[in-house]
């Protein structure tokens, strides 16, 4: 019994050390600050702040349907967030999640349609793997460009996002189009889509797959030699190369892995939300993923928490738009502010009560 307690205590302190309680507190602070600015905007333009926030809360957690909406929206954000987080370990800022997700979504739609008739497990597995491969391929492009020429990944991934939207539209319109006016693939039959954990709730297995991937990524970062190499390159490419790590290969690998994550995000949207690939479907999951990763400090479990929060904000934002008539794009404002606030370690110094003892270490911050 004492042995068990001792182990539990050790495990807890390890979790606390990993999660970084101070980072967590600061992230929560940044979110409240951003929501506060959002509230100011709502107030300044003559809307009812109380009504807005109660709609936001209702839409995110107020009913089983609301919770299922929150989880359904959180799942792709978890993956696009991981897409940013994985590349960040190597010091790369992958803002190409949007494009990688588009290829993943199209690949998963095409593969799952081809697998219809098989047991649903195989359809989901095939679709997710296809999506991961497609996203990884699209992620390799900026990775190779960065490794071979030094072209900044932020610019190349933005351009590749536009190319991916055009490319998937072209392929869908010309090769995979369902009859009708809209450029989209055929509908997946309901029995070939993401099954629900409990019937009637709308809560699918997507979030379970997401948590499994979080565990895997956490293991990769903390326990595997590849994760060690990633972080060595991220801290100091020169020192890593001196230590015998192939920096260029790590850059390409991390972008491939990040691309795979974003690709899976696309399959989650297709399998659990749309039931098909629709051209230009994304409301910006790839970009919200940046906010998710930055808020989660690129820590896998942090990314999960941040994804749940932003999933809730997106779901609640829809309700806020419907019942309080406040345009949902306010949530994009909140995301931008969260990124800015979390990125600025110096912000703490303005609020002396939050200042940690012993000063802030700049290098310890993600952003």
């Amino acid at each position, binding site marked *: 019994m004492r042995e068990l307690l001792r182990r539990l205590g050790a495990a807890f302190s390890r979790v606390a050390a990993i999660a970084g309680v101070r980072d967590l507190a600061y992230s929560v602070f940044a979110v409240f600050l951003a929501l506060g600015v959002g509230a100011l*905007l709502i107030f300044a*333009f003559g809307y009812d702040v109380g009504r807005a926030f109660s709609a936001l809360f209702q839409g995110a957690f107020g009913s089983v349907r609301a919770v299922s909406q929150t989880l359904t929206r959180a799942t792709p954000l978890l993956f696009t967030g991981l897409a940013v987080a994985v590349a960040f370990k190597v010091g790369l*800022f992958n*803002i190409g999640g949007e494009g990688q997700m588009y290829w993943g979504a199209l690949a998963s739609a095409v593969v799952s349609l081809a697998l219809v008739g098989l047991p649903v497990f195989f359809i989901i597995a095939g679709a997710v793997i296809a999506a991961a491969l497609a996203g990884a391929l699209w992620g390799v492009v900026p990775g190779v*460009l960065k490794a*071979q*020429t*030094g*072209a*900044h990944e*932020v*610019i*190349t991934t*933005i*351009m*590749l996002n*536009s*190319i991916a939207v*055009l*490319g998937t*539209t*072209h392929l869908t*319109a*010309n090769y995979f189009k369902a009859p009708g006016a809209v450029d989209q693939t055929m509908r997946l039959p309901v029995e070939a889509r993401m099954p629900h954990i409990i019937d009637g709730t709308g809560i699918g297995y997507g979030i379970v797959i997401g948590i499994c991937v979080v565990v895997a990524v956490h293991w990769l970062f903390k326990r595997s030699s590849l994760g060690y190499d990633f972080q060595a390159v991220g801290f100091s490419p020169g020192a890593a190369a001196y230590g015998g790590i192939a920096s260029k290969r790590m850059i390409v690998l991390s972008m491939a892995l990040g691309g795979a994550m974003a690709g899976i995000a696309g399959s989650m949207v297709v399998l659990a939300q749309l039931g098909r690939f629709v051209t230009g479907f994304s409301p910006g999951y790839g*970009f919200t993923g*940046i*906010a998710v990763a*930055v808020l989660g400090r690129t820590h896998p479990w942090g990314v999960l928490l941040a994804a749940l929060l932003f999933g809730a904000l997106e779901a609640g934002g829809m309700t806020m738009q419907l019942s309080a008539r406040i*345009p949902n*794009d*306010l*949530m*994009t*404002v*909140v*995301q*931008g*502010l*969260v*990124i*800015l606030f979390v*990125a*600025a*370690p*110096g*912000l703490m110094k303005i609020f002396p009560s939050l200042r940690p003892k012993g000063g802030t270490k*700049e290098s310890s*911050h*993600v*952003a």
Partner: protein
Amino acid sequence: MWLEILGTIFSLNTFEAAIRLAVPIALAAMGGTFSERAGIINIGLEGMLLTGAFAAVLGSYFTGSAWLGVAFAVLASAMSAALFGYFTIELKANHVVAGVGLNILALGLTTWLMQVFWGSRGTSPAVTGVGRLHIPFIAELPIIGRLLGRQSPFVYIMFILIIGGWVLLFKTPLGLRIRMTGEHPEAADSLGIKIRFIKHFSVILGGAFCGFGGAYLSLGNLNWFSMNMSAGRGYMALAANIFGQWNPLGGLGASFLFSFSDAVQMRLQGLDIALPHNIIQMIPFVLTIVILAGAVVKARPPAALGNHYSPGK
């Protein structure tokens, strides 16, 4: 067939359009040049352009004057640059992350405000635009007349600003201080140059240039604002700035390359050729990647780019 395509690509109409389309990219590229010469990586150009485009329409809508709209744009973009500068210089935020944050903030805020003011998420109502200038003497010249005789005033503003920016950066003591701040802040500091002031000044000035570019996007031609109107031009501008070796004139040249490809892309869509529209539309994006990849190999950015500087260390 090939003759027709080549004739379309290298027609005066295409070049005339390329000069126009270069305005927002070249001005934002110079904004990036000033910021990066002072050591601040500026991914936020996109958000500053978008802010300018929105503020221009807002100003024109409420005052009825297009030029007051332009003033609004310059002011708003400079303010967004000041915010970016505050986060990167004072709060020591990672430049790239803060820049992307600013872009997302600008996208959210402009889209939200557009709906608050005009109730539409697509486009704003049409407002008074800047129109075109007809310059009597130049317009009569054979080729130059077609290219520059009846252009948007923004085209002339762009040329004046870029030449002025080049002079400021390379021919004045202030320009020398800016470049020194980005190359070797410790040395600049030891000479008594006010590093923080120079950095803020360069970032805000760069934002003001983006304001002109953004105002052109909305008031130069279409005379309305639409969601995400900058559509990646800020990122292209950053690539143009790198390709132009952190020099306003080089940035202008690179911007012409991008705007020319954009003009070609638009005109090819009007032709009945075998290439599908979606593929043709990719041209400027692919070109940006290719040029950036080719340019970076040889590029030498300011030595202290992306670093934070704390005096007295």
